């Protein structure tokens, strides 16, 4: 019985901690297709993971304006992931095709 009580207590504590921190970290996908980021604007929370997948036949990048993070050259069908911190938001673009633009919005949960 003591063991069961301890397990139940642990579960309650875990659920409570999870609720206190908001929902669990999520994974988001941005597809690069037709020389565009899809979705072009994505709202995420710190701790979330964003995965860029290049579906085009040519290389692209996802590069934050003003520095901070940069996928560097992403070959066709390859992917790059970023675990987001609160300072990672803002516009980004493809250094090879600067007319391609996206925005990452970071909001605390």
């Amino acid at each position, binding site marked *: 019985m003591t063991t069961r009580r301890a397990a139940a207590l642990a579960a309650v504590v875990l659920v409570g901690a999870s609720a206190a921190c908001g929902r669990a970290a999520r994974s988001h996908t941005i597809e690069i297709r*037709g*020389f*565009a980021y899809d979705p072009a604007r994505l709202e995420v929370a710190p701790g979330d993971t964003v995965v860029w997948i290049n579906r*085009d*036949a*040519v*290389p692209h990048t996802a590069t934050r304006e003003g520095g901070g993070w940069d996928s560097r050259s992403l070959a*066709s069908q390859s992917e790059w992931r970023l675990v987001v911190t609160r300072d990672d938001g803002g516009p980004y673009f493809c250094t*090879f*095709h*600067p*007319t*391609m633009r996206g925005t990452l919005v970071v909001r605390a949960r």
Partner: protein
Amino acid sequence: MSPTMFPRRPRRPTLVLALLVVPSVAALACKPRERAAAPPAAAGQTALSDAQIAHIAVTANSIDSAMGELAKSKARSAAVRDFAQTMITDHGGVNRQAVQLATRLNLTPEANDVSRQLQRGADSARASLSSASGAAFDRAYIAREVEYHQAVLDALDKTLVPNAKNAELKTLLQSVRPAFVAHLERAKQIQSTLGNR
């Protein structure tokens, strides 16, 4: 303007489309002065077959990739050199896709009046660019890229996509369109920074 070039009462709309559009496709690698003097590229050209369209697509990509190689070695501006490298990479990538598709479809690209004239125009433009240097080269190369990509877009929309019969070929042609749009926009951006003289 001869009646042969623009028949008043055409028998087939497709033929008229080819006559009106194909000359602009074929002349798109020429300088404006040369283009004005160029003969109508493919007068008498009938509707294009898939094999011919594939050859035009591969030729158009190869031309711009080769022109990128020239610009990479001659351009003064870093932005122009970067653009040239992107042309080499992207048009090479698109061509690999086109060749893979042609192989899978057992489609042998067939040389035709349009692709031959494209190549002649490119040779002429290359000779002209080869004699330029420094900032004048940058301006001439980027001006040609603006014109070239606009002309290819027109050709895709008005001739190549509408005439493609195989669904996969049509899809490929449609899928490369955003590349030409992005290249055109970037070339215009760079052009605006280079000035006129």
